[in-house]
């Protein structure tokens, strides 16, 4: 009897021990408090959905429940701004924490954040590479790697990285959103739409996915859907400025001055007392209205900040029209200086880093030459700009379409109707309605 009991109990005990060891080995976060862990995971979920405030709240809650819990401190450094009064305290506590009991992931994240705080780029790159090499499927490591790929402008690398990230953790909204933009950038519109749809599903209460979708819809010429998405975004977040801005762009694309004015008014109403967004909206309105030739004061536009490549391009065109090539040249020079001043990241070509500005410059040059009659130079510049432009977002997307239309006009003026038709076809491949809406984003007649 005893022997039977022993024969049964010993294997059971061994199995239990093995399971316990396995469970402990796979414990991702070092805490003895289940409540603290739950709060922390809630914070992670909120952060994945870009609810920074909610995430911070959950992290602090986790710390209240388990003051020795290190991981919340790491992530608080990601959601809090450096000027937050609690920031230094958290950094200090993190530095003081003993890394030995931590899991490997926690040790990496701690070291990485501290290196980032110390602005030791080489160190946090080294740490990142080392951790990802050992744990290629860790979502946190992947997330940081993908961010790096995006920043250095390696589109394909970033795309692969984010795709791997969503395979591992599909609910990381940032990844879905970025993949959507990456797909749009590469002209994979269906894929982009899917990504934004997924984003909308994961974060149904967020305005951003609708806003992202609206950008895509606007670029694609699906204006009604764009309206619906922007309406949805603003319904969810009436103070989501980005959507108002995109609504202004939509009004421009639809050649709808009423909408333009109405949107401006909505911004003023929504952000009353907040100068920054109302100023931006007013400036945007002024520029777009002038572009649509509904009357606007060019001097006033000149005072406005030039935000976004399309805005700069529109302003350039207005300057050409209003003040002639010299004003345009001044703008171009300014842009050129900006390009030169951009710090170069090691091993990354300058034009890759700021391809928007590079393309913009070429476009402006092309426009100037086109208006001045130097069509061949204009053609070359515009073609070069087209090769540089990518559909990173709505702003650049519309500019790309505008650039192609100017190019088409130039080619046709040069007598190459076929090439002109090809360019127009390339426009309608992206946005079938772009050519229906005059005055084509304020393009002057070139023929």
């Amino acid at each position, binding site marked *: 009897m005893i022997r039977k009991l022993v024969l049964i109990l010993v294997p059971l005990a061994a199995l239990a021990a093995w399971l316990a060891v396995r469970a402990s080995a796979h414990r991702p976060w070092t805490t003895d408090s289940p409540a603290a862990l739950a709060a922390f995971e809630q914070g992670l979920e909120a952060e994945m959905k870009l609810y920074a405030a909610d995430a911070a709240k959950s992290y602090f809650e986790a710390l209240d429940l388990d003051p020795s819990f290190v991981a919340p401190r790491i992530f608080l450094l990601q959601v809090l701004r450096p000027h937050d009064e609690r920031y230094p305290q958290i950094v200090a506590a993190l530095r003081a924490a003993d890394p030995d009991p931590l899991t490997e992931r926690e040790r990496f994240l701690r070291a990485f954040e501290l290196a980032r705080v110390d602005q030791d780029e080489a160190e946090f790159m080294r740490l990142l590479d080392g951790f990802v090499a050992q744990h290629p499927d860790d979502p946190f490591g992947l997330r940081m790697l993908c961010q790096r790929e995006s920043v250095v402008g390696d589109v394909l690398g970033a795309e692969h990285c984010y795709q791997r990230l*969503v395979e591992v953790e599909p*609910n990381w909204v940032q990844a879905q959103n970025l993949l959507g933009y990456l797909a749009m950038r590469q002209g994979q519109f*269906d894929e982009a739409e*899917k990504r934004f749809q*997924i984003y909308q*599903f*994961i974060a149904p209460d967020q305005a951003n996915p609708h806003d992202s979708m609206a950008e895509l819809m606007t670029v694609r010429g699906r204006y009604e859907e764009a309206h619906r998405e922007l309406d949805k975004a603003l319904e969810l977040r009436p103070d989501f400025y980005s959507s108002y801005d995109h609504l202004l762009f939509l009004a421009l694309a639809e050649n709808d001055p009423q909408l333009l004015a109405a949107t401006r008014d909505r911004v003023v109403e929504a952000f009353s007392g907040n100068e920054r967004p109302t100023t931006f909206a007013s400036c945007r309105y002024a520029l777009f209205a002038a572009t649509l030739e509904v009357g606007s004061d060019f001097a006033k536009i000149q005072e406005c900040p030039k935000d976004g490549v399309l805005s700069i391009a529109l302003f350039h065109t207005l300057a050409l029209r209003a003040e002639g090539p010299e004003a345009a040249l001044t703008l171009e020079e300014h842009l050129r200086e900006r390009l030169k001043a951009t710090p170069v990241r090691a091993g990354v070509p300058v034009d890759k880093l700021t391809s928007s500005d590079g393309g913009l410059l070429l476009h402006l040059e092309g426009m100037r030459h086109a208006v001045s009659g130097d069509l061949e130079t204009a053609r070359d510049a515009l073609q070069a700009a087209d090769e540089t432009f990518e559909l990173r977002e709505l702003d650049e997307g519309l500019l790309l379409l505008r650039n192609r239309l100017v190019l088409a006009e130039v080619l046709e003026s040069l007598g190459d109707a076929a090439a002109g038709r090809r360019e127009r076809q390339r426009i309608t491949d992206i946005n079938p309605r772009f050519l229906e809406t005059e005055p084509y984003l304020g393009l002057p007649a070139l023929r």
Partner: protein
Amino acid sequence: MVVSLPTTAKALLGLSAVLFALAVLSIIDMLLPRPFDGVLLDPDTPGALRVLDVIPGSGAAVAGIVPGDRIAGIGHRMVRDREQASRVLGSYEVGDTVTYFVEDAAGGLRESRLRLGEKRAIKAPYAYACLLGFSFFFIGLYVLLRQPHQRAARIFFVVCNLFLVFLVCRLRPASYSSVDSSILLAGTGALLFLPAAFLHFFLIFPRPLPRLERWIAEHGRTAWRRLLVVVYLLPAAALGARLAKAWHDGESLSLVSGAPLVNWWILAAYMLLGLLVLAINSEGLQDRRQRRGAALVFAGSLFGLVPFLTLAVVTPSFLHSERFLFLGVIPLGLVPLTFAYAIVRFQFLDIRVILHKGLLYTVTTAIVTVSYALAIAFFNSWSRGTALAEWRFFPLLFALAIVLLFEPLRRRIQGPIDGFFFAERSRLQSTMLEMGEQLTAGLDHEEVVRNLVETLPQTLGLHFAALYLVKGGQLERVAGPGYLPAELPLTPELEAFLGRDRRRLTRLDDLDKEAGESPELARLLQRLALDGVELLGDLASPRGRVGIVLLSGKTGQMAVEPTELKLLAGLLSQAAIALETARLLDQRARQAELERELAIASSIQSSLLPASVRMADGWTVAAVCRPARDVGGDFFAQLPGNDDEPGAVIYGDVSGKSVPGALMMMAAHEVLHALAMTHADPAELFDLANRRLYRIGQRSFVALGYLAGASDGPRLRYGLAGQPPPLRRGEDGEVSELPVPVHRLPLGAFHRGTYQVLETRVEPGELILAYSDGVLETQSPDGEFFGEERLRASLAVSLPEPDAAVRSILADLEAFAAGHPAYDDLTLVAIGRRREAE
């Protein structure tokens, strides 16, 4: 029913308990209340959460989710595998409305809101598969418990368990639960070993394939075991190889119900091979019942498996569609059905199922009742609102129809059911009854023997039957296998045992106690057991033991059942009577023949006796001879005389009666007659006759008396050889004995004898009476002998004439005997002298 289980059977039972528990828990798991969306996932694409089917009326169905869709997200969370989906679903309650993210077959994404249902419903096809699986299991369990020592039964049990796991676990509708993956994996595991077990079973059942047996004999059992290992492991190896290839090539392996197509092809090959082996095996079966059972199983397996293989193997291979897989499962039901029927009807796997008629009748009635109820319900619903239903006599008419039709319908169904389940038993009973009638109706001994030794074994499926009849205290084999003993001793212990309690049938085992007391019986029983005898049937009629029947066991592995023993016992009673009757008839016929011969012999013998005898002139003689039976040993005769003178009168009494006595009498008659022709001297005659008769032998002798009256005076010469002295009745009626010779040995008793002839005067009015000892030995019904005194008294009062005296004495003898059968022949010779002769 349950016999002691060998270790292997116990181990199998243990394993099957685990598998059974797995199957039951699998079904219970499906019924546990948990939030369920109504989606059944494709089990062969676990990572993709592809919808295989949608429960009608479920939340998913209402939300517009259709087969082919992919579940990408649940509750605003993207899900990449079942485990994740299951975790997310687990955070909801039944009744919650959840947003699903669904990708359709074209790649389009949409959000669908659906309400989570209460529990997963089991659809009809899966319910059918479960029913089928458990049918297999319980049939296999029943077979194992009935035949735990039979290897084929154990393999059959394994096959049934694998079918259970395949049908219940592999065909289980898959959903999000991680439990599904484990259960489905178990089902796939069963699929890997099922075809090999199937083939293995038919390689050894209904009998080991002769070619296989020869191969094993040639190569040894170790080689056979190794081959079996290869057969069993080949599907798993094929799966492993296929998976390895897919992994190496980076291709996505297409699975059909959990296994790649190569495994399904292997399954098909094994199963078809198994069927082929069964067909080959069945052909060579000797036993008719086994052949029929095997044919039935073959048909059921063929029609059950071929559609399954076609729809599960061929269709996915060539049409790349497994939509019809489940349709192939439906005819699989034929396999357990035919196995069950073969067991019940043909004692397949040597199992006899005792079905109680009462239970079947109850079931039949229940079925008819349910059918009626359904018909009523249907008719009611159909006729609702019609004019017929409104008619006021409709309910009455309806009730009447039911009452009138119910019983006839039930009885009509009963007939086929009886025929279905009890055909064999009925056939056996009617065959035995018929045989019994033939036995009692026919009086032909040969016919009875043929029925017992040929027809009976065929009917019962025995190897042989042997008939032994009692002859001279022994049992002599009359019919049966030659290797059985020609004779058997009918030992007292055996006789006593058989006679006790009027046992008709006895198993040899039951005689152990008696065998222990008698070494001779023990040796006999041992010998019989070695020869294959199992049963001993007593053929005893009311008059006595006629013989015994030795019966072997059945050609299969079953024992003779109690019902069969009962029928057999009745048959043996009838056979015993039939044999006895046949023997008696035979005896009677022979007796009748003998009687006829005796009558002839009597007639012949009578003809030898002269109608009358005479002596020389002056003498009167009367003689009579009465045999005790048809023929006898007494006689009288007239010896040949000289010229015209009559010869002497002799009267004899042969020792022995009936035919032997008669034959000796005739021999003596002829000897004396022949010798008398050449030898007149009586003493010489006696001497020669003695020597002659002595040579005949046979330990018979003849008591003879010689009487010769002189022709010239009242002198009577007489000689005696063994006969009692004659009596003289004087004129005054006084009776005296004549002087006897000194030597009067009967003729033929000794080689040499001395004989005297004496002479006496017989005056007129005197009577000389010579007689044989049969006269004195005449018995009355009380057992009293007539004796000399009575004879003298009878002679004293008789008339002096010889005829009258003889008649008178005969009458007195008859009166004395009063009908009591005569023990011995009797002869009377009376001689008198005529007065006028003086």
